[in-house]
């Protein structure tokens, strides 16, 4: 059957698909267009009346600071959760333990708990911890990183684990037969083959941490407020057109990051699957 004939038989499905893309991407384009509206007051106008980049120069300092906080938190989170998740994945896939399914399910529990609940749970835990020990994680960089590591470990276990499962264990056996020590097998055989999984894990850790609102809204305060929380507060209580310009910049950065990851590790590893 020719592609055209197939398309004609499924035109209704394609119509829904088009509607879906319009629905998913339209609002993001609306932000980009509205950010270029020089006379912006409150409403989004289409087409824009006066094109200008004026709002891009008027982004308040607190948002730029928050962007820095977000990038810092997301980078540290990505590294820690990839390290922890990677170790767990090697243990789960190559450890030869009989109960590894149960353990895997245990590691995935953070995905089953709604993020708001995780946020409230850690808020209260930090409170009680501060009362007991005098160390206050609330409103600190470390406090945010701990929560984000907790919610992102399952992602890096998923990406690194799925790469490991595809790699033939004979590769390591061959290295061992040839006299490789444990350390050199790890460093020169295992590590190179799981590299795409590590990149994908870093990517997930970064992007999940960077986009998080429901947990950070409870933990972040004072000097260390992440960008999504700052935008969330702005939208909840007042409105500043500069947020549109800022959001456009964040979207462009996210798109660059996603395209870069897709080039580096390929689409199938970046796609979230139902298992994770």
């Amino acid at each position, binding site marked *: 059957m020719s*592609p055209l004939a197939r398309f004609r038989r*499924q035109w209704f*499905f394609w119509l*829904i698909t088009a509607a*879906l893309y319009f*629905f*998913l991407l339209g*609002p*993001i*384009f*609306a*932000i980009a267009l509205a950010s270029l509206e020089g006379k912006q007051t409150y*409403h*989004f106008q289409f087409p824009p009346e006066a094109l200008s980049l004026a709002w891009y120069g008027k982004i308040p300092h607190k948002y730029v600071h928050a962007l820095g906080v977000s990038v810092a938190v997301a980078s540290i989170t990505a590294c820690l959760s990839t390290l*922890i998740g990677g170790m*767990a994945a*090697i*243990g789960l896939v*190559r450890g*030869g*333990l009989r109960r590894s399914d149960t*353990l895997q399910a*245990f*590691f995935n*529990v953070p995905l*089953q708990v*709604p*993020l708001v*609940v995780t946020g*409230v*749970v*850690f*808020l*209260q835990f930090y409170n009680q911890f501060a009362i007991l020990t005098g160390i206050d994680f609330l409103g600190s960089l470390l406090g945010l990183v*701990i929560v984000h*590591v*907790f919610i992102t*470990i399952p992602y890096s276990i998923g990406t690194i684990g799925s790469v490991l499962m595809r790699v033939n264990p004979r590769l390591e056996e061959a290295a*061992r*037969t040839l*006299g490789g020590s444990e350390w050199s097998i790890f460093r020169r055989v295992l590590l190179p083959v799981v590299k795409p999984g590590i990149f994908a894990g870093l990517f997930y850790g970064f992007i999940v941490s960077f*986009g998080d*609102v*429901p947990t950070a*809204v409870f933990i972040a305060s004072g000097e260390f407020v992440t960008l*999504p929380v700052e*935008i*969330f507060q702005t*939208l*909840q209580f007042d409105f500043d057109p500069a947020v549109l310009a800022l959001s456009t910049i*964040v979207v462009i950065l*996210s*798109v660059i990051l*996603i*395209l870069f990851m*897709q080039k580096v590790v390929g*689409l199938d590893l970046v*796609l*979230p699957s*139902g298992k994770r």
Partner: protein
Amino acid sequence: MKAIVARHRSGARPRWHLFLWAPLAISAALLILPQASFVWMSFHKNLGMGLVSDTLVLDNYLRILSDPFYLGSLWLTFRLSLEATVFALILGFPAAYCLARARSSWVSLLVVLLLISSFVTIVIKVLGLSLVLGQEGVVNQFLQAVGIVSEPLRLLNNSSGVVIGLVQYTLPFLVMLLFGVVQTIPVSLEEAAELHGASRASTIRRVIVPLALPGLIAGGLMTFNLNMGAFTSAVLLGGGKVLTLPVLIQRKIFLDVDYPLAACLATVLVVLVFLFNVASVLLLRWNMRSQRPS
């Protein structure tokens, strides 16, 4: 060579499982310590000003399960999550089907677009929705210009706004999951059905949907779970008027500083989501068993 073989045989296998213990300890500590102190908190009484009683009480749970206000919130959360799940499946499945069956290089671009939509932070997507859904937004302008509605629809600060936001939030994840599901259904089965004279509609109804059913249920379940816990879109698009459980939890913390009740609501939410998952897994198993010819 002999020495190497000997070492190999003598069980010098790398002990990879040793890697597991540190992550396991960290995960367990991060999961069990906070959760346990949290559930413990939900059995205490609020004394105001963030102070809680020393005695254990069931008051909070009794209050939630008897007060019509909290029961109403539970029901609202459930209803909106279900509505959003149904809409997401109706939109998501045909799209996933098209993407999985199309044999064109455009497909990977379309998948990347889905990926972008799913990874742009939710606040920004909500901001975009609030731009286009307002009384004078493009959606209402379009609907009025075409003549579908005579007065602008209220699509923000009410439950329809929340449902739209939930669908926007979950749809890319759902489509990516169903994309994988449809790929596992061989095209040859559809072609066989059509060769034997089945119409397009009956092929969809009697071949594709039954084969995709486990995937549809799994996807629907994932979507429902995400919806039940959805916070950002519920707060911002509901405009503080749509009090689902996640919104109530936030209000109890920030407005009323009633930590025990917030803990209790959160525990109820987690237990509900968990029970719902268990119930649907059981239902699915029972369904598959009853379909199997004996």
